[in-house]
């Protein structure tokens, strides 16, 4: 759709003497022009996967200060640096025990192939962490391959089954998602195969647009009653999380705590999606780096931070540095979706010729809604999905999770911390005024946090 016509000449290059007479508009760049042309041709808004792609303030805008004269570092490999996280020990008979502070975010069977779901389960289980179902219910394979499985409770209630609820290790009530706070899920007809249609009680091949609001509760007072019902149905065995898109994280977190959540999952605007309107992905919600501190502020004021209610942060987490910074700002764990898919083979340059045939390129592919993923991940096509070896892909994910964990420990030890959850905002400095204001840590080399006296 956005590729140049194959019959026409190649786009002009800098070696052409005319090149420097041409000036591309900053406002109407070629990407904007291509999108206007696409809209004019089809009459439909752009739908795609992935999260926000434009330049945003990120956790890269923060640095750790490290140890120095006034505090001493810990020896790598020799001195212990714990990474475990427990969720729900206050109210649930069976709290969730994670060996590492990184979880796998909710992604549905339907949006992902059965092989991809299996790979996520295998990798997460090997690393000692949890996976999460998505909008479409729990498959038997998914339960079998995930040692710790979080069951999402979504507005659409597609595939919602109380037997699965009781078979889960935790429940995540989804209020919103970082890619689209205020929007429901989508799954286009190419991916509504017979099995997916049956799980969701929908006609095969329809373009599914999920509900954006829960059908039987509205607002935090109702949610409190709903969480009570979920606890009653599961006999108070398992924790209940509440997931929100990063919109008003201070208030949303406070209200989730008031409603009785054991964990609040806050998903920043870089958080991915399988299919959402581009205008939603790029223009609704706030960046992850801006959301964490506000959620933590709410938890601290309510006296539950690092105690009864845990904070899980998601949205554009890529490295141990991101995880460590999220923890230092006050999160108890970070959650990955897009990065996990990349680890198991999404956007693999090995498929370059096929990406090109689809009008994309490795590193750019985001048409997860189209169901023709060459990597066999975001598809229901049996031939494409058979390309993904769930055992090898699971091993890749386990390796990646191990790297995230060790990187997090490296940074924690460098700051003299014997547990990754001992990282604190005082270990950080900001490289930009924006990040200093958003994350509420001082601009590097100053004591200045914009907005504070």
């Amino acid at each position: 759709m956005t590729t140049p016509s194959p019959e026409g000449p190649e786009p002009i290059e800098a070696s052409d003497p005319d090149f420097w007479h041409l000036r591309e508009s900053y406002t109407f760049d070629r990407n904007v022009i291509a999108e206007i042309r696409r809209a004019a041709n089809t009459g439909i808004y752009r739908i795609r996967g992935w999260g926000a792609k434009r330049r945003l303030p990120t956790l890269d805008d923060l640095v750790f200060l490290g140890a120095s004269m006034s505090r001493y570092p810990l020896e790598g490999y020799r001195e212990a640096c714990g990474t475990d996280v427990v969720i729900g020990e206050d109210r649930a008979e069976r709290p969730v025990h994670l060996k590492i502070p990184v979880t796998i975010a909710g992604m549905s069977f339907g949006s992902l192939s059965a092989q991809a779901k299996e790979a996520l389960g295998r990798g997460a289980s090997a690393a000692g962490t949890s996976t999460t179902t998505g909008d479409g219910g729990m498959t038997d394979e998914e339960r079998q391959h995930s040692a710790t499985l979080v069951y999402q409770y979504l507005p659409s209630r597609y595939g919602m089954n109380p037997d699965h609820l009781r078979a889960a290790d935790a429940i995540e009530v989804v209020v919103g998602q970082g890619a689209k706070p205020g929007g429901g899920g989508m799954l286009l007809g190419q991916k509504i195969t017979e099995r997916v249609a049956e799980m969701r009680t929908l006609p095969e091949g329809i373009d599914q647009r999920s509900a954006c609001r829960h059908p039987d509760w509205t607002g935090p007072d109702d949610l409190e009653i709903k969480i009570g019902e979920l606890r009653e149905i599961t006999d108070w065995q398992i924790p209940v999380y509440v997931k929100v898109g990063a919109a008003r994280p201070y208030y949303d977190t406070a209200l989730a705590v008031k409603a009785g959540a054991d964990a609040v999952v806050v998903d920043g605007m870089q958080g991915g999606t399988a299919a959402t309107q581009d205008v939603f992905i790029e223009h609704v919600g706030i960046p992850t780096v801006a959301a964490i501190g506000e959620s933590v502020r709410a938890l601290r004021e309510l006296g539950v931070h690092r105690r009864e209610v845990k904070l899980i942060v998601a949205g554009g987490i890529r490295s141990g540095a991101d995880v460590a910074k999220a923890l230092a700002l006050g999160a108890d764990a970070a959650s990955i979706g897009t990065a996990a898919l990349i680890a198991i083979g999404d956007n693999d340059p090995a498929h370059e010729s096929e990406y090109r045939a689809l009008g994309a390129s490795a590193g750019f592919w985001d048409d997860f809604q189209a169901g023709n993923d060459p990597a066999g991940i975001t598809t229901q096509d049996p031939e494409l999905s058979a390309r993904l070896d769930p055992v090898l892909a699971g091993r890749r994910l386990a390796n990646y999770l191990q790297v995230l964990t060790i990187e997090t420990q490296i940074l924690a030890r460098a700051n003299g911390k014997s547990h990754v959850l001992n990282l604190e905002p005082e270990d950080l400095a900001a490289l930009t005024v924006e990040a200093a204001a958003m994350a509420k840590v001082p601009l590097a080399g100053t004591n200045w946090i914009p907005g504070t006296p």
Partner: protein
Amino acid sequence: MSGVRTFDLAEATRRDLNGALHAAGAGGRFEVLNPRGAHAVACGITADIDVVVRGSVGYYCAGMHQRGRVLVEGNASTGLAENIMSGTVRITGNATMSAAATGCGGLVVVGGNAGARCGISMKGVDIVVGGDAGHMSAFMAQAGNLVVCGDAAADLGDSIYEARIFVRGDVESLGADCVEKEMRPEHVDTLARLLAAAASTVEGADPAEFRRYGSARRLYNFNIDDVDALARAAGR
């Protein structure tokens, strides 16, 4: 009643009640006294048991119900029998919002009126309302049958999928993509069966008095134009 275990919620806790219901084997019989609007009463039942609640209940009574039978002698608040999978839930009085929301199977009978969004996102449940149904009932309804013996308020069946709606009285307005459909013999049979099943709670009605509503299926797929293809075909 002999062999009936009684829970008086003026003294026992909701946890006591629901824990006992979850532990009960098939054939168990229970009576709940003084519910006084408690929430999530008799939710998450999985066994083939009978529960009678003497009084009105709050939110999510008989939520996610499976197999057994629950009778409420009174009214129910939001989310009665939400996500019911099988079995039967009956109430003699009125139900407020979102009765039988997202229900996947079984039968829900409301003797009185049902409030807004009755049967929202229903996925296979059968619902019989003796009185009227509130606005946006059967919103995004995917499968199953909603029978309304009285009138239906505005935007009935908005964005409906394959569920069927039968209304005896007036329909204030139909929602997006919901249209009146022909009552064929199999629909009359279905309706007669559901009215018979509801007979202990809802007064008898003649299936011939009902009209059927369902999806026009115009919202099932995006409407995507391709002007480029037209231009190519026209040689431009």
